[in-house]
């Protein structure tokens, strides 16, 4: 480590506990950072595309996750390197913004870093590289806009949407029934979509899973499923035209927030208190009954006595329902969440056409279905599958598919997949590079090379000869000036992604390019890494 010395040869102390910190500066720092970023990208590279492989991750507690969703892999990997953490952030932000393409964005960033390394070795200043990348990303961004197509769908014609979701699902393990799942995802999104405002609130779609059965048994329920059962085993298992009181107060005597004591020192007081208590329970139940509720859903527990009274008055009840679920139920049934018994009123009740309890398998698992709600704008996707990991992975895949469908409703522009968009951008950026004088030209050209990394990885994962395939497709694109040629991963026989119906959303692709460029710029700008060294 470089140290500064005063005129007597004693070192200046600049950082606290300077000797204990390791420090990396200049080109070394940049190289180390680039290497770390590349290492992360290399891990995800094999997961890209329809023939991508999965990763098995074991958490600190020994739970196993199998997935090929980039964001999930990186999140679970528990990385320690600072730059690697940036890459994790990158895929996470893609996940939050778009929901899909989390693997692609990291692979893209890795490729950009790889190219940057070569330029650094030539002695080009990192900032110039960053600027060149920025210019190139603009070009690519605009070019994507240019090659994108509007694509029409209506609430009745959902076929195009289903096709897009199928592209997303084809890279996942649920490949086997991607058609059914894609349809479920699209229907779910359309059910909650606000086509006027072009917005979709994904919170209204609940994804619930239960082990057992087959993947094919996965279903879309127009309503809510709660993993709870009736509080009393003898309550009715099915309620039609339910009026639901949604409560966040327990069926228990009140607990005032201020500290207090009730002293009992005479027999009269003892009896009085006892009567009071009974009256209290009675009143609570009566209130629910009075407003006309036929089902009580409560966030808290019930006392045994209250439970029996509810049962007695023929008022089925569900207890310990989580806050999020409670909100969903309130939205779906059009009811209001009531925090106090005094505030219950008939108009605050939610309505559902059918509430039923359904049991599964040989164990005592039961779930509560709330269907035919007043406001059908909340739906549940209920996933079945052979084992826990399968369900988790299906949940993640469906989440991706839902996001894609939502993005399409927000903005119905699409680009074609299979690497065709990247190849086309690469051609465009390459062509544009010559127009820029200066060092940036090199960086722009490198950017074009980096764009090739995604189709290369696709071809490699599909067992094709990467370079042969890529060059063939590229020359085809230029020759036929057809920007829709891509890598034929599934051996269908045609390169034209338009014929194969492989789409991706325009905003997803644009976001990928922007985000990865930003992160690479950030990494390139770092020239000093100071970290406390290990003991």
């Amino acid at each position, binding site marked *: 480590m470089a140290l500064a010395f005063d005129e007597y040869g004693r070192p200046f102390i600049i950082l606290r506990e300077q000797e204990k910190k390791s420090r990396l500066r200049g080109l070394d720092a940049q190289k*180390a950072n680039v*290497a770390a970023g590349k*290492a*992360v990208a290399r891990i995800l590279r094999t997961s890209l595309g329809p*023939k991508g*492989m*999965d*990763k*098995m*991750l*074991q*958490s*600190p507690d020994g739970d*196993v996750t*199998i997935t*090929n969703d980039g964001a999930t892999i990186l999140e679970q*990997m*528990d*990385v*320690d390197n600072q730059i690697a953490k940036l890459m994790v952030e990158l895929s996470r932000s893609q996940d939050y913004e778009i929901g899909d393409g989390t693997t692609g964005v990291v692979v893209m960033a890795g490729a950009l870093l790889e190219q940057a390394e070569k330029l650094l070795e030539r002695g080009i200043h990192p900032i110039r590289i960053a600027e060149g990348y920025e210019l190139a990303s603009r070009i690519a961004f605009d070019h994507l806009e240019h090659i994108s197509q509007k694509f029409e769908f209506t609430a009745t014609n959902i076929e195009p949407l289903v096709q897009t979701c199928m592209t997303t699902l084809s890279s996942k*393990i649920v490949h*086997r029934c991607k058609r059914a799942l894609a349809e479920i995802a699209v229907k779910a999104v359309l059910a909650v979509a606000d086509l006027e405002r072009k917005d979709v609130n994904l919170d209204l779609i609940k994804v619930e899973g239960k*082990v*057992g059965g*087959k*993947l094919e048994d996965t279903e879309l329920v127009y309503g809510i499923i709660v993993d709870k059962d009736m509080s009393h*085993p*003898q309550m009715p298992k099915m309620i039609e035209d339910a009026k639901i009181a949604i409560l966040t107060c327990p069926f228990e*005597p*009140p*607990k*005032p927030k201020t500290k207090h*004591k*009730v*002293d*009992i*020192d*005479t*027999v009269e007081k*003892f*009896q009085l208190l*006892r009567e009071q*208590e*009974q009256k*209290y329970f009675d009143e609570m139940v009566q209130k629910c009954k009075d407003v006309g509720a036929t089902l009580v859903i409560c966030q808290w527990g019930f*006392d*045994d*006595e209250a439970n029996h009274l509810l049962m*007695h008055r023929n008022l089925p009840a569900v207890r310990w329902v989580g806050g999020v679920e409670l909100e969903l139920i309130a939205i779906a049934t059009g009811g209001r969440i009531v925090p106090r018994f005094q505030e219950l009123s008939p108009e605050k009740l939610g309505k559902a056409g059918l509430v039923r309890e359904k*049991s599964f*398998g*040989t164990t*005592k698992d039961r779930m509560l279905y709330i269907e035919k709600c007043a406001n059908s704008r909340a739906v549940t996707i209920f996933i079945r*599958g*052979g*084992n*826990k*990991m*399968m369900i988790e992975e299906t949940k993640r895949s469906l989440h991706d598919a839902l996001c894609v469908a939502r993005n399409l409703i927000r903005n119905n522009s699409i680009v074609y997949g299979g690497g065709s968009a990247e190849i086309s951008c690469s051609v465009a950026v390459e062509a544009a590079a010559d127009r820029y004088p200066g060092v940036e030209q090199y960086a722009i050209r490198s950017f074009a090379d980096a764009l090739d990394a995604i189709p290369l990885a696709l071809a490699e994962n599909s*067992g094709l000869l990467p370079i042969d395939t890529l060059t063939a497709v590229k020359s085809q694109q230029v020759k036929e000036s057809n920007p829709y040629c891509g890598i034929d991963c599934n051996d269908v026989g045609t390169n034209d992604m338009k014929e194969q119906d492989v789409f991706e959303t325009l905003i997803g692709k644009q976001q990928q390019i922007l985000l990865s460029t930003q992160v690479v710029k950030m990494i390139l700008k770092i020239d000093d890494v100071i970290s406390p060294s290990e003991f």
Partner: protein
Amino acid sequence: MVDRLLKDDAIQEKGERARMASFIGAMAIADLVKTTLGPKGMDKILQSTGRGRSVTVTNDGATILKSLHIDNPAAKVLVDISKVQDDEVGDGTTSVVVLAGELLREAEKLVNMKIHPMTIIAGFRMAAECARNALLLKAMDNKEDSDKFRSDLMNIAMTTLSSKILSQDKEYFADLAVDAVLRLKGSTNLEAIQILKKPGGSLKDSFLDEGFILDKKIGLGQPKRIENAKILVANTAMDTDKVKIYGARVRVDSMAKVAEIEAAEKQKMRKKVQKIIGHGINCFINRQLIYNFPEELFADAGILAIEHADFEGIERLALVTGGDIASTFDNPESVKLGHCKVIEEIMIGEDRLIHFSGVQMGQACTIVLRGASEHVLDEAERSLHDALCVLSQTVNDTRVLHGGGWPEMVMAKEVDELARKTPGKKSHAIEAFSRALQAIPTIIADNAGLDSADLISQLRAEHHKEQSTAGIDVISGGVGDMKELGISESFKVKQAVLLSATEAVEMILRVDEIVTCAPRRREDRM
């Protein structure tokens, strides 16, 4: 050189190594339970690490795997599918793991032949679909004919039990299980079947009781036998009722006051008891404790009071007697009471139990298991549970298959056919699938000490004929007619085995990298 990406102690395995690690882990698990497969399968002893080092003897795959502490992530996948199989259909927990293991063994060979895992998966998928269709085609359905259906059920129960400890008396127990399940009349609610274990006697002394037996004693001085009982099932505190209003406490300043309050408490209890008696009952069953004082009051009124039935017991009682579970007693007219013809005390071995017969819900019954030791009883219970699960599932899905390796051979034949028709590398995978299917009868034969190579080839030849019903007859050690021998299996179980094994293998094959995070450090309690 790149700095470490991951935290210390984290392990990252890639490509071939990762695949090897998961293959080896999964196959090790499959080999572990392999020897328990089939009627001549052996048992395992499991010793827990907990206090007491309690010992379990079992050959139930799910039980064995559940108690293992496994570190290999791929092995965990297999444990998981076995668990799900147990929850869903109750039986076939060993078969599913063994099939998955065999599939992986075949897949490993293919990977070594440089076939890409994705191609293998595609082949396996096609093969699984084809095998399922073959099963669907061959499944028999005797739903219409109740006599035949009953004999189907008997056969299934006997086949399931024959690999368990109960195999000596399998006919007897199969009969018990079928009776119990048929009483349920189609519901899969196994709660109504109570299994009671009492050490002593021999397994043969086990019996099915039509009523309900509660492992409790009748309070002192209370009637030992009640006819036409009216039962109130309750969940209420019968000690002192706590005041539930928050912050209440009793504060007294003299001994006299203490006595007063005590008297008031007693008075309150007396009132409560009177209210309960006011329901016009002659039997009172409570989930919670009943103190001496109320017990005495009940005895005085000639009411049978039973305390401390556990929660499941209470629910089941309420279910079978058709009464409500009550917690307040102010409106006697609206509480539904439970009914049964006779309540009496009976003796099983040394213990006195309470027997409810002639209960309202005819579906309920109790199976009393007798046996030489706790271990035997535990294993017997597990075996019986398996049989009951399978039967109740079969009642719902009445399709039946032959056993003894017959379904595997049928599937293998169809899958082989498919392999011949399929061009491309996939056909290797399809062929491998068929080999893995044939491994199951091979293992059954091996476990029985038979010459598996000879038997399987005979079996295959036999199956080349149309409509063959040949399978392995472990008893005589040759190829036998499964139809005549009456060895049957439930279609649902076989289908679940096939599908979940394929699914699990697919998951494991798709992995090309394993990242194991640093284990969470446990704080030393020492």
